[in-house]
């Protein structure tokens, strides 16, 4: 057990991903989509977490990188024959080249990173409210580019279709595990630790030599890569994509996942993504009638989003650090509450002895 100690916080997220995969493999093909969606959500939310969790800066723009990844992986895997037909205005470079599933995911991650780096250069100087607004503007810009620029996407926001559906349970699980490993490796690294320190106290971080702007940019770029990968997984799951599928609703949903799980930890990101994604899938199904054993549950339209909104609000009020309290899962470690009382005791003792 002790030799596993350094990677212990990675085990819990990976085990949860494996568990979701196993349960999903036992269900019907239709239900299985909910589990694939949960795994793709884990990847998206880990991408969000790599930046927000480690830097403490809010970003509403992360789904832009998912969008870039989805369009890149989608367009590059449609065979060149039909591609000319469905995407007449496309840049000839994209139109004339097609790649396989795995290269398309790698390119999605690469472009996500590149895009994040470019927008991050000016943006990472901001924090607080201005960071929120500026990243939101990035989401807006990306949405409009994908809707109205036929050289990179179908005309006027039409569906990009005919994308090979290569994301089954296995690929979704593999992607989520890759994301978890990358996020974990980063947060344990020297740079990750420096950024996390700046999240706690900016002045103290500056005093120990942390170039906060640069460390944030690195995290933002890495989160762009993970988000791009997630976009690739997503488009290969659905087989098609529209700009509005990678826009406001997904932004809200994935932020809710991160907040519910706990922004401060990889474990929180994973738990939140799994729980909220499954809940969202089943609530949406319930709007069309969900068979629960003997009876059928039918929710009024809009109920799913309403329930998620209430859940998010309740979470922010009652448990602002999320279900996990923003901590990693650490088996066999004393609980903080115990440490707290033990140390209080030692100080009481100390005070008496000294005076």
């Amino acid at each position, binding site marked *: 057990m002790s030799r596993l100690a350094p990677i212990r916080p990675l085990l819990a997220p990976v085990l949860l991903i494996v568990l979701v995969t196993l349960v999903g493999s036992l269900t019907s093909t239709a239900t299985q989509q909910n589990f694939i969606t949960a795994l793709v959500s884990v990847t998206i939310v880990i991408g969000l977490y790599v930046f927000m969790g480690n830097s403490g800066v809010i970003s509403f723009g992360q789904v832009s990188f998912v969008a870039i990844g989805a369009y890149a992986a989608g367009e590059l895997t449609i065979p060149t024959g039909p591609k000319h037909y469905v995407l007449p205005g496309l840049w000839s470079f994209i139109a004339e080249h097609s790649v396989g599933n795995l290269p398309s995911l790698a390119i999605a991650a690469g472009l996500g990173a590149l895009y994040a780096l470019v927008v991050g250069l000016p943006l990472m100087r901001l924090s607080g409210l201005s960071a929120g607004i500026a990243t939101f503007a990035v989401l807006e810009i990306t949405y409009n580019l994908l809707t109205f620029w036929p050289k990179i996407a179908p005309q006027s926001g039409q569906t990009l279709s005919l994308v090979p559906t290569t994301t089954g349970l296995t690929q979704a699980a593999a992607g989520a595990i890759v994301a978890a490993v990358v996020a974990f490796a980063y947060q344990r690294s*020297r740079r990750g*630790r*420096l950024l996390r*320190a700046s999240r*706690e*106290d900016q*002045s*103290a*971080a*500056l*005093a*120990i*030599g*942390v*170039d*906060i702007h640069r460390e944030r940019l690195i995290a933002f770029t890495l989160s762009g890569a993970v988000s791009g990968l997630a976009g690739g997984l997503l488009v290969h799951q659905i087989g098609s994509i529209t700009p509005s599928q990678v826009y406001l609703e997904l932004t809200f949903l994935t932020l809710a996942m991160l907040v519910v799980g706990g922004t401060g930890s990889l474990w929180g990101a994973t738990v939140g993504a799994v729980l909220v994604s499954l809940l969202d899938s089943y609530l949406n199904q319930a709007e069309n009638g969900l068979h629960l054993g003997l009876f059928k549950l039918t929710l009024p339209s809009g109920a799913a989003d309403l329930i998620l909104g209430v859940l998010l609000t309740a979470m922010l009020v009652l448990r602002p650090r999320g279900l996990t309290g923003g901590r990693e899962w650490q088996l066999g470690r004393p609980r*903080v509450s115990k*440490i*707290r009382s033990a*140390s*209080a005791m030692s*100080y009481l003792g100390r005070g008496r002895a*000294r005076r």
Partner: protein
Amino acid sequence: MGTSGASRDGGSSGARLRATDVARAFKGVQALEGLNFELGRHEVVGLIGPNGAGKTTLINVITGFDRPTAGAIELDGVDVTGWPASRRARAGLARTFQQGRVFGELTVQENVELGALGVGAGAHQARARADELLSIMQLADHAKLPASLLAHGEQRKVAVARALASRPRYVLMDEPAAGLFESDISAFAEVIRSVRDGYDAGVLIVDHNMALIMAVSDRIEVLDQGRSLASGTPEEIRRNIDVAAAYLGASGVTAERERG
């Protein structure tokens, strides 16, 4: 005392931390005015003065947390006036804060390791330095506790250890002994001396504990209303009547009585 390094300064070598003619004005308040200050390697300088004298402002201006309205800062012959704080830190200029500012959620050990990581040390080196400093500062028992759980004085010791983990050329400490038990002060004085002698660093220490300042300083600077009021060895300062009037006052008299 006081002869170990302070008297060796020829003034010719570039190896000094130097603030030349610095001024800092806040709306209506002249926190620093035409101030000159120097700190050599292997030297402990005590900086004293009444509340609001400008001690913290001077540390802020030197370390890059505040911009001087006039004047220049030079680090071993290099003009660093335009450098951001983090770059100055990586160049060997460490500081602590009057408010402590530990990373409260991280353990004591992680706090100290970060001091080394911040200036580019690897994980192993950081761990080794932290182990060493935690034992020097008598913090080893608390190594695995979140820093926020420590008493105030202990948190300041963590902040000092964190600053020292960067192996700074100069370290500027803002009231590091506030909140320490009287019985810990002499151990802390020993730490300051070993930073000077063992790490070969220049130390600027601001504190209201006159006994500590008198005990560790090679030289003392007295600041009042942003200007230098006096400068000299602890003995000279103690005899200086102006200083007694401006700063020591009642507490100075008590300090004298305790010693004499």
